[in-house]
């Protein structure tokens, strides 16, 4: 028994180290990008605006990516998040401009609630009708955006329609950390804690790992999947509020194309597209990496037109690197077993 115990513990350690390494690799990439950009131009990190933007810019996508990660972990995907961000951002703006003196908290609640309802629509269709989420959310991507365009028409919400107390949320800082970033990080910590330490959080992993087994097991698959979509919608709703606060202007195209960014962030962060694997931390880091790359490229002197290509190369590079590291680790594990 003793020999086995030793092997077990060493295997355990290497495995958990591997688990951590996935997120670590992405964190490293973020740090490298920041260092490179800062060396090129001090202002990227060491100016007031540079520091603020470094933290602020990824915050909105981070929220969406966290929700997306949880949905993907259940072996689903939510392609409608971009449209939900658009709708809720517009709702935020309209509430402020139509209802004078409306409290900010009420608007946040309304936007998050709208996001949750939209998420509920997705979730109900997926969970009850038992159809692939990719199809459903591709459909609602079009439908929600269409509703946004019909509702907004050519109107847009301008910064002047928004109360300055709300706008200052978008740029305000507490101890030099932007308020939006603080909120996003709190959400991230809560989601991370839940997914790791709550029974129902772990059930999401089980469902994504093998839905049929989860059914046999008697897990409440429908409820969890529904919850994941509602959460994703609610977080997209919160991101919509952030969007309005940060950008001040909301038109009917706000947030379009974010679905791929959010899925990309999750996948880059090590969330397996087939579910069951990954953490919201990874997804958050993926979002930070994506947004930071976007901001660093002009600073690094990459011409505007070529930035898209560089982003593509970096995305592919990040996932290839991740894969290579994982394969290497696995091989090392096998060799270790052989030697024991």
């Amino acid at each position, binding site marked *: 028994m003793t020999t086995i115990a030793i092997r077990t513990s060493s295997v355990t350690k290497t495995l958990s180290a591997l688990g951590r390494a996935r997120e670590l690799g992405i964190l490293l990439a973020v740090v490298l990008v920041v260092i490179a950009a800062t060396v090129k131009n001090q202002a990227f990190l060491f100016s007031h605006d540079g520091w603020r933007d470094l933290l602020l810019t990824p915050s909105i996508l981070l929220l969406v990516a966290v929700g997306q990660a949880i949905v993907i972990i259940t072996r689903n995907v939510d392609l409608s998040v971009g449209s939900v961000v658009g709708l809720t951002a517009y709702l935020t703006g309209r509430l402020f401009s139509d209802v004078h003196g409306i409290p900010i908290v009420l608007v946040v609640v309304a936007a998050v609630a709208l996001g949750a309802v939209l998420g509920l629509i997705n979730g109900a269709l997926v969970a009850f009708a038992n159809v692939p989420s990719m199809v459903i959310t591709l459909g609602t991507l079009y439908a929600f955006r269409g509703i946004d365009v019909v509702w907004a028409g050519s109107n847009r919400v301008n910064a002047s329609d928004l109360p300055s107390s709300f706008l200052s949320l978008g740029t305000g800082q507490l101890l030099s950390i932007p308020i939006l970033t603080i909120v996003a990080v709190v959400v991230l910590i809560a989601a991370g804690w839940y997914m790791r330490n709550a029974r129902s959080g772990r059930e999401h992993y089980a469902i994504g790992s093998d839905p049929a087994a989860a059914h046999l097991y008697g897990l409440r698959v429908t409820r969890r999947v529904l919850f994941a979509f509602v959460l994703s919608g609610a977080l997209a709703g919160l991101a919509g509020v952030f969007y309005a606060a940060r950008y001040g202007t909301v038109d009917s195209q706000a947030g379009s194309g974010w679905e*791929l960014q959010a899925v990309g962030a999750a996948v880059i962060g090590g969330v397996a597209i087939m579910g069951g694997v990954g953490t919201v931390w990874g997804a958050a880091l993926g979002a930070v990496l994506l947004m930071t790359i976007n901001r660093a490229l002009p600073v690094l002197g990459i*011409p505007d037109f070529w*930035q898209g290509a560089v982003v593509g190369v970096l995305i592919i590079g990040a996932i290839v690197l991740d894969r290579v590291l994982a394969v290497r680790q696995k091989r090392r594990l096998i060799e270790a077993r052989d030697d024991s």
Partner: protein
Amino acid sequence: MTTTTAPLRAVRDFTHPLWRRVVATRESAIVALLVIVAVVASVTVRGFSQPITLTYLLLDVTPILLIALPMTLVMITGEIDLSVGSMVGLSSVVTGALVQAHWPFGIAAIMALLVGVLGGAVNGLLVTVVGLPSLAVTIGTLALFRGVAVGTLGTTAVTDFPDQWTALAQARISGTTIPYVMIPFLILLVVFAVLLHFTPFGRGIYAVGLSKDAARFSGVNVERTKLILFILTGVVSAFAGIFYTLRFGSARGDNATGLELQVIAAVVLGGVSVFGGRGKLYGVVAAVLLIGALSSALRLANVTSDVINIITGILLVVSVVAASVLAWAQKKRRRPHVTASTAA
């Protein structure tokens, strides 16, 4: 088992008769819907029944029709290619840049097709050799191909294409209102339909989509199958890019932005499962035409694009939900019947 005493049991080929197998499918529902939309629109929408409608409709959906063919095969293996729209743009830019550099158009087009092969191979190799999920890979190449396209031409748009070529892209087969480009499309359709439905390779595609492991254990070369399909998708997208360039007479880096989701929406509407293993080519073709006819009719009725988008989205959702509700209802209906017969 010749020594067994039991007589050889004759096994039926099919559970249901042919008509039921054909009629009670999602594909047939889409075809029926297409017919209904066409008939209703001809009667109610002014201007829809004129012959020119067909020309415009077909020209509009040609890039989607073309790319949907290989995309169907890719999605049946359980993979996906999100980079097709960017590949259309890249192929357009390659054609344009070479024509601008005074290459003959034919050679430029061939180079664009080669770029399609190359791009497809990049996707395919990353998926098969490196073993990455195709959704992630092609989100990356979506950005990469588009980035190279935009980077290459920058602000400029190449517009000086030979007139005989641009005219050909719009020309109609004489005496009809059907564009010439339908000929290469029909050839490709036959090729892909035979490949998918009537070859051992096609059987392998379905097997890979349903169970990668079982396919491998049966001697299907999973990696090669996928690689070939990604390359086909790349090259057909490049072909669509050339058509796109000629139809609009303009090569630009941002050509066909967002086309990928339209293609995937059509493929999925046509009954292909995003999990792989299921789908028929005729369903997909009917779905592309359905979306095309619907938007054409709605535009003629002065319905704005946002409403058209809502309708497309709802159609997608309803089509899958309806199928599942129908199956559920059927199950419900059957149950008391069985109980009754066993009780009797």
